[in-house]
C-alpha cells in the first residue's frame, strides 16, 4: 500500500511540473526558443497574485483572474521586444537573452518584495488542507487533485486550440515553416507573440499552484525551471502530451526516491532524466511537427 501511495502522490506532484513545463514546451515547439526565464516568470505570476491579495481579500484563484491578462501582456511584449530581436541573430541568442532576463527578474523581485519566503496557501482556505482518505494509508489531497486536473485541462485545451481552431492551425503552420506561413499571409511575428503570451500565462498558472502548494521567494525560479525542463525533455521536446507524461514521470521518480530515502527525492528525478536522455533521444513522446 505504501508504494501505491508513493505513485499516487508522485502523479499528483507531476501535475505541478507539467503545468510549469507546458509553456516551456509550447515556446520550444512553436519558435524553438528555450526560455531560461520561464521559472522566474512563473514566480512573477505568484508574486502578482500576492499583490492583488494585499488589496482585496479574495481567494488566490480569483486574484489570478486579474493577473492573467497582465501575464498575457508581459508575454506578448516580451516576444515583440527582446525575443523577436534576439531570434534574428540565431536560435542560440534567445537562450542568452532569457538567461539575462532571468537574472533581471530575480533582482527586480528581490528589490520589490524582499527576500522573504512567501506562500499563497494561507489565502486558499480549506482547499490546502482538504483531502479524501481512500484507505488508511492512502489519501488524496484536494489541491493535488486540482493541480493535476488543471494540468490535464491545460494540455487538452492547448491541444484542441492547436488542432481544432483556425488560429491554432495558423500557429502550427508557423511552427512548421515560418517562411511559408508568411507567404500564405500569416503574420508570423504576431503568431510568435501570442504563443509566448500563452506560454507566460500558463507559467503564471503554474506559479499560482506552486505558491498555494508550497513556498516561493525571488530566487525560486531556476529550480522550477530545472524541473519543468526535465519534464519537457523526459516527455519529448515540443510534445504537449509528452510534457504531461514527463511531469508525471518526474513526480513519481521524486516521490519514489523520497520513499527510499528522503535525500534521494531530487536525485531520483535527475537520474530518470539522465536515463531518458541517454536511452531515448527524442523523449518518451517526441513529435515531428513540434506542437502535437
Amino acid at each position, binding site marked *: 500500500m505504501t508504494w501505491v501511495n508513493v505513485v499516487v502522490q508522485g502523479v499528483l506532484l507531476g501535475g505541478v511540473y507539467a503545468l510549469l513545463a507546458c509553456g516551456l514546451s509550447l515556446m520550444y515547439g512553436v519558435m524553438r526558443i528555450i526560455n531560461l526565464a520561464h521559472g522566474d516568470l512563473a514566480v512573477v505570476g505568484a508574486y502578482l497574485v500576492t499583490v492583488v491579495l494585499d488589496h482585496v481579500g479574495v481567494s488566490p484563484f480569483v486574484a489570478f483572474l486579474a493577473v492573467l491578462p497582465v501575464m498575457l501582456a508581459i508575454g506578448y511584449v516580451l516576444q515583440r521586444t527582446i525575443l523577436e530581436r534576439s531570434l534574428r541573430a540565431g536560435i542560440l541568442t534567445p537562450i542568452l537573452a532569457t538567461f539575462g532576463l532571468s537574472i533581471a527578474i530575480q533582482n527586480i523581485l528581490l528589490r520589490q518584495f524582499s527576500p522573504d519566503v512567501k506562500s499563497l496557501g494561507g489565502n486558499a482556505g480549506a482547499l490546502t488542507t482538504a483531502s479524501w482518505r481512500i484507505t488508511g494509508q492512502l489519501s488524496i489531497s484536494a489541491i493535488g487533485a486540482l493541480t493535476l486536473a488543471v494540468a490535464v485541462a491545460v494540455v487538452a485545451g492547448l491541444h484542441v486550440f492547436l488542432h481544432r481552431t*483556425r488560429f491554432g*492551425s*495558423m500557429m*502550427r*503552420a508557423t511552427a*512548421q*515553416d515560418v*517562411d*511559408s*506561413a*508568411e*507567404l*500564405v*499571409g*500569416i*503574420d*508570423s511575428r504576431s503568431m510568435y507573440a501570442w504563443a509566448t503570451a500563452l506560454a507566460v500565462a500558463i507559467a503564471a498558472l503554474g506559479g499560482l499552484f506552486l505558491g498555494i502548494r508550497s513556498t516561493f521567494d525571488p530566487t525560486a525560479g531556476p529550480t522550477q525551471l530545472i524541473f519543468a525542463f526535465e519534464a519537457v525533455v523526459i516527455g519529448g521536446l515540443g510534445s504537449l502530451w509528452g510534457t504531461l507524461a514527463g511531469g508525471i514521470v518526474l513526480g513519481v521518480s521524486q516521490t519514489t526516491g523520497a520513499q527510499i530515502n528522503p535525500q534521494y527525492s531530487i536525485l531520483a528525478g535527475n537520474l530518470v532524466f539522465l536515463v531518458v536522455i541517454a536511452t531515448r533521444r527524442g523523449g518518451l513522446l517526441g513529435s*515531428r*511537427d*513540434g506542437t*502535437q
Partner: protein
Amino acid sequence: MSLLAVDSVDAGYGLLQAVRGVSLALAEGETVALVGANGAGKTTLLRTIAGAHQAAAGTVSLAGRDVTRVSAHRRVALGIALVPEGRRLFPGLTVEENLRMGAATRRAGRWDLDSVLAAFPMLAPLRKRRAANLSGGEQQATAIGRALMSNPIVLLLDEVSLGLSPIAVEAVYESLRTVVREGTTALLVEQDLDRALGFADRVVCMLEGRVVLEDRAEPAAREKITAAYFGLSAAGAGGGAA
C-alpha cells in the same frame, strides 16, 4: 496600366547580387514565363515580388500601389501569392489544413476549398492526408491550391515542374490552364522551354541577374531564347535588356 510592375529592382544576399536592375510589367490576365539558367536570379526575383526577400533598390507595385516596403503576409492580403520552389507545404498539416492556411487573409474571391478541389481533382481523395505523405505532383497541386485560396490577383509560380514525373507535370499544367482561363495573372518560372512557350503569352529570359530577352511565346522565338539563355549572342539579346 500594368497590374504588376517591377521597376529597376536590385536584390541579393550579402555581397552576392542575384537580381540587377530588373524591370518587368504584367498586364491583367497575362501569363508570363520566366526562364534562365540556374543562378540567373529567377527565384530571388519572385521572392522579392512576393516580399519574402527585401529589394535593395527599385520598386514593386501592384495595381499602381507601391508595395516594396510591405511585408510578405500583407502582400498576400493585397493579392500577391507565391508558390515557392520546392512546394514548401506545412508537412504536419493535412492537405485540407494546408489549403485552409492559404485562406489565412480571408481575401474574398472565386477560390475556396470546393472550387480548388474541383480545379485539382487529384486532391479530393487526399484531403485528410498529411502533406509529408504526398507524391511530388500532389504536393505541387496542394501548393498551387494553397496559393489560390488567398484569391490572388497575381500568382507567382516557382519551378512548377521541377522534380515531377512527366505525367504529374501534365496533370498540374492541366489544372493551371483552368486557373489561368479564369483570368488570374501569372508569372511562372519554368525550366522546360517548350512547356513555357506552350503555356505563357510571353517569355522573359534572365541571365546573371538581368533580363536579357523578352519575347512573345511563339515557337519562332525558341532559338533566340535558347541563345539568350546561354548568353551566347549579345546581338540576339535585344528587347528588355537592362
